[in-house]
């Protein structure tokens, strides 16, 4: 039987082994970030109080206040434009930021309303970089077979140059809100000719959605 080294030229095999070693040493292992976990623990504690509110409007208001305080909405707004972020004009930006803020809050409050009556707890974190950390949480007391049993709620935390932390995105079981918004928005911009014209179409669509 022919061995693997017999098939591969020896030098190529050594080169690829060396390349693999370099990769292993160069790529820093993802680590937990306790400061980011503590940051999210504080927010989750506040959210748990909001989830307890019996009145839907009170929950909506509570979630919107938390989003206002902790989500870096302008950064998310720019992210959701994808490559078109470099083409937005200053005048468009002003209008887009304000519409996106309203739209994202609507999405957040509806998504987080699913946890009404539940309590979340932070379970750990993984840092993609010192400025980009995923904090995971789960519903307390979910039993096997429950709706929430295998659910992991993720929070993507952004740390600024000054060390201040904000929420950048939220997701559940690997499905992220801002990534989904980016997919929609890029599609709308591209299907309307791209560039500033495409962004105008997106702004019009946002207005139509929010103001009916």
């Amino acid at each position, binding site marked *: 039987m022919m061995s693997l080294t017999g098939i591969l030229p020896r030098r190529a095999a050594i080169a690829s082994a060396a390349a693999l070693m370099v990769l292993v040493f160069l790529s820093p292992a*993802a680590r937990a970030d306790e400061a980011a976990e503590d940051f999210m623990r504080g927010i989750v504690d506040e959210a748990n109080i909001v989830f307890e509110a019996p009145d839907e409007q009170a929950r909506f208001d509570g979630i919107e206040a938390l989003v206002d305080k902790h989500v870096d909405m*302008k*950064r998310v707004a*720019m*992210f959701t434009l*994808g*490559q078109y*972020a470099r083409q937005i004009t200053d005048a468009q930006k002003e209008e887009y930021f304000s519409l996106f803020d309203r739209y994202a809050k*609507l*999405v957040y409050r*509806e998504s987080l309303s699913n946890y009404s009556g539940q309590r979340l707890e932070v379970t750990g974190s*993984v840092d*993609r970089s010192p*400025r*980009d950390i*995923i904090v995971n949480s789960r519903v307390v007391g979910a039993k*096997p*077979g429950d709706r929430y049993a*295998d659910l*992991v709620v*993720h929070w*993507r935390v*952004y740390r*600024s*140059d*000054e060390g*201040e932390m904000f929420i*950048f995105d939220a997701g559940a*079981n*690997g*499905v*992220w809100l801002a*990534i*989904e918004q*980016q*997919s*929609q*928005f*890029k*599609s*709308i911009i*591209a299907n309307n*000719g*791209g*560039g500033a014209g495409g962004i105008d179409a*997106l702004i019009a*669509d*946002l207005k139509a*959605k929010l103001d009916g």
Partner: protein
Amino acid sequence: MRGLAGRCGAIALIAAMVGVQPAAAQLGNVGETETTTADLEHAASETGGAEGDPWEGFNRKMFSAHLFIDGNFLVPGAKAYRAVTPKPARKGLRNFLANAAMPKTLVNDLLQGKVGRAGETTGRFLINSTIGFLGFADPAAKLGVPPHTEDFGQTLAVWGAGSGPYLFLPLFGPSSLRDGFGAAVDIGFDPLFYIRTDPAAYARYSRAGATGLALREPLIEPLEDIEAKSLDYYASLRSFWLQARKREINDGVTNFEDLPDIGDYEELDELE
């Protein structure tokens, strides 16, 4: 025989699409203007962007056709099904259908070399088919063996095949070229497929119909919500599906490495 012909037709359709791919990809490029290195880097780090959907024009037509069928037949059917059945019965039917689909998961567990998961699948099948009343209950989950599903699309992914273009087909819903092809192959992993008698054919058709209703019924509200919130329902579903599928292929483990980067926006840093 008609069933077989239909399946061959579906496989032929997918095969024909493979042939169409280069032309479709070229068409997709016509409208593009300048592409910079930064754009390409950005595109490479995308999750579920339009970059994975060179057949968007075709897919959107199929999506419209699907919405028509969905709104006129599937949703009313699912609502009627909900109206005449109690919740535990619907859950029981979902369990039963999932249990009946276990041979497919088992074959794909084995094809992926996941012997432990194949053992779980077999254990679940034996437990649920017996003390689980033919699969209507799921005592295996309570005994600590949670359900999982595998399909040939996932097997191909584990073997290293890329997803290929995103594909949306009426009734089948969101998929990709690889996963659509996988679904066609999975038909061959169904024991009923090989019993060519009338009762077996009725059983297959009834199961297909029941599966459609059982899967659509719990999605009535979630899909309504997504449609209500989205600016572009097609793109929204595409992204949700692509993101969720990635995790499913990874056996429920979320990979944070391949998320698109947050991005530096200098003008924002100046504001802060």
